[in-house]
């Protein structure tokens, strides 16, 4: 059984590192990218089961990256979750209309991040060995 593979796109190195470790510890396989532009290619090539996407990034931000992912045939079906520090009500309103499966707030609780992702995606919690039901 292959573990679910998650692509983390975040420009903050420390956060990439912490989030990667968190998800690895939770039984996921993690790929990382340092910005939106860099994230498109692994998304196409690696076909992750889900993408954890930061919003505030230079040049191409989370919204633009999501739009690019939805444009492309190869990545359209990959579910995207925002992991963002933009959690003011107004910010959330803006993000919620973009088509992401969920908006997860920063800071995140490492004990819950994996659970929150599987719940949001409709995967059975703890079914790390199961196939993605996308």
């Amino acid at each position, binding site marked *: 059984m292959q573990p679910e593979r998650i692509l983390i796109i975040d*420009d*903050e*190195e*420390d*956060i990439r*590192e*912490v*989030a990667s*470790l*968190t998800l690895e*510890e939770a039984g996921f396989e993690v790929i990382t990218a340092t910005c939106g532009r860099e994230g498109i290619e692994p998304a196409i090539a690696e076909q992750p089961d889900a993408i954890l996407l930061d919003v*505030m*990034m*230079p040049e191409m931000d989370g919204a633009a990256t999501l739009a690019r992912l939805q444009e492309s045939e190869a990545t359209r079906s990959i579910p995207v979750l925002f992991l963002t*520090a*933009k*959690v*003011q009500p*107004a*910010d959330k309103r803006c993000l919620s209309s973009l088509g992401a499966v969920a908006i997860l707030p*920063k*800071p*995140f*609780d*490492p*004990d819950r991040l994996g659970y929150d992702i599987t719940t949001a995606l409709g995967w059975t919690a703890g079914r790390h060995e199961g196939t993605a039901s996308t």
Partner: protein
Amino acid sequence: METTNSFLAAIRSRTAGQAWFIFYLALAALDLGAVSYTLYQHHRVTNLLDRRSTQDEEFDKQDRVIRRLGSITVEIDDIANDLPNSRDTTESRDRLHVAKSAMAASLTALHVSAATIPADRALMAARVDRIAHELRIVAQAGDDKLAAVERGDLAAAAAQNARLDASNVVAGRLLNELSASIDQLQDRLFAEEHEQVELMRRAQIMIGALIMAIIAGMALYGRALAQRVLSARERDRYVEELRLSNGAFKQLSRKNELILNTAADGIIGIDLDYHLTFLNPAASAMTGFSLEELQGKSIHEALHHTHADGSPYPAMSCPKNSALRSGVAASSSDDTFWKKDGSSFSVEYSMEPMRDEEGRTIGAVVTFRDTTERRAVQRLKDEFVSTVSHELRTPLTSIRGALGLLAGGLITKSPEKAKRMLDIAVSNTDRLVRLINDILDIERIESERAPLTKTRCEASALLRDAVDVMRPMADKAGVNLELMTAVEGTTVWADADRVSQTLTNLLSNAIKFSPSGSTISVSASPGRDGVVFRVADQGRGIPADKLESIFERFQQVDASDSRDKGGTGLGLAICRTIVRQHGGDIRVESVLGDGSVFTFSLPAAAPQQDTHAATPGARVIVCDDEPAVRETLEAMLKQHGYDVRMASGGDELLGLARAFHPDVILLDLVMPAMGGWQAMAALRGDPETTAIPVVIISGMLAQSQEPAPFDTAGWVSKPLDERTLIETLEHALGLGGRNARIMVVEDDFDLARVITASFERHGIETSHAATGREAIEMIREHAPDILILDLILPELDGFGLVEWMGTQEHLRNVPLIVYSAGDTTPAERERLKLGPTQFLTKSRVPPAEFERRVVKLLDVMTLTKDGVAHAA
């Protein structure tokens, strides 16, 4: 009643008065006529009466004569009848003769009497003649019968007797007729007389009526006249009142106009058809329309025709529409008005229906305010909060994640990973702390809760200090710091700590982005806009499109810089805020890969002044518990010409301050018994000492006491630097460490209120005196920094006040603004000279412009007192 009224109304006018006079004359003439007529009639009646009494006698006499004549005829008849019985006719003849004589006498008497009756004289005479004729026949018949008897002719006697009887009958009838006719005449005369009396009576009634009419007319005319006189007086009084109220009205309308013109909000008046009838200058300025352009146009069509998004805004759906119809107020805090040039602006408006005395809605007043700026500020604030939230959450995410993983024991198997997580947590905690410090710092600086403590600073000293601070960091990075010596005597008027902060921030940035072995050069030189500081590095440079934005908050060239270089994205924003607060500017030039040059300018300090001349004998109290400090300060201050007193503690200070009335107090903060702030609270609490500026001398930095509990006139840190101390003292003495003080001398209270309010908006302390005498009393208490003077004042006018101030040493140079109703002549201007003097005419300089000029003048003064030299 109505006619009387109209008559009265008619005679009120002058022509009616004349008509009345003519009418009155006619009435009087008529009255005179009636009186004359009555007199005449009276005369006639008297005559009549007079005549009647004689006539009555005559009538009586006639009556008697007629009756006598009757008896005479009977006598004759008797004689005639007796004749046949007597033989002797002599007796009969004698009797007949007597009777005939009596008859003749009576007839003569009747003739005479009848002739005395004027009326019907002829008729009477004729009748008497006929009677006489018949009686003569009777007498003749008697004679003839007698003769016949004597002759014995019985037949003749009988004939004569018949003739006598017949005539006797006729004479008796005639006498009766005459008697009746006399009665008739008498009756007629009486009737005639009665008629005359009646006429007289009527005339008298008429006289009475005329007199009544005259009296009534006089009464009415008199009343009308009195009313006319009263109404004339009334009218005079009314005219006087009108004149007074007209003046008051003009003054009131001038005040109202002032208020409307001064209002910062736009004020628009509309009628019931939403057509514009009024536009105040603020509304005109905001919309770009003049009243002439909008008068009579619909307010909605003119200003409110389109929504903010560009879609048409039908008047029917506008809340203003329903408001005027239902007579209730309408308002909107978020709407858009359109200007003449086609652009729009955010407004907040309210519309209040305008009602007349009867409560009918006759239009509305729309008040509005441009909220573009407020909206922008709000948006910036929201953005800032959102950004700050994001910026704080970012390091917290790493910290929370790393610590969570450690706490959950998930990574116990790999000590390297655990160590890495701890490192991440620590470095992000540092970053978070820096971030919080910078956020607090920038907020404090921008909110001006930490006012600048400006002193004269040597540029080279500032540079040297900053370089010394940053040297260790530069050494660590292997970067050379090159300090170019500033031109000797290059000084700035600035807050030294803030300038140091700016310089270290710039140096820190430069070091972070400089490759090892490169050089950073720092310099300062006098330039066109004061003194220019320069920090040049040989680092990676800044892309052209970022040159402006890097001074914005949380704007970095590269997001990873905040982690790699330990920046917060706020450093340059802080630098710009500090520089701008000093009135300077900061900019950067850069060539990618070659390095960047940051330059900022600060105002140059004025050349050093002779302190002795600047503050001759100013009185200072030094309050410090340490004798050594007191001695040092006393010597130092005396050398500079100050009149110095010493206090070793708060209590002593308070007593001394009340007795000595110092111009400034130097106060130590840390003292036993009563601390500096406590002493200051006591000083501020006492009206006698509350205005004395206080300069703090303390081992602590001014910034460490945020916020200071009181406004201080300056802050000098220990160890004391002589020059800094003297400069701070001078500065404190300049404006006394207080707000600028303006005195308005104006007898129009409303105008004074408008002026006072407008200056208080600028934080200027404004006092008001209504008369020249009141002004003198107030000036004796506190000399103003500027005097605003109306010329025409009660008690003592503007000229008198200026003359008095000219005689006072310390008031001779007070700047003066003459704000008078009329123009002043050159001669008057010559009399009105104090310090810098301006002449403004109320009608020509509107309050807004007036306010601007005064504030400008005040700014110039304040800057001069601050000792800032303006680069010419």
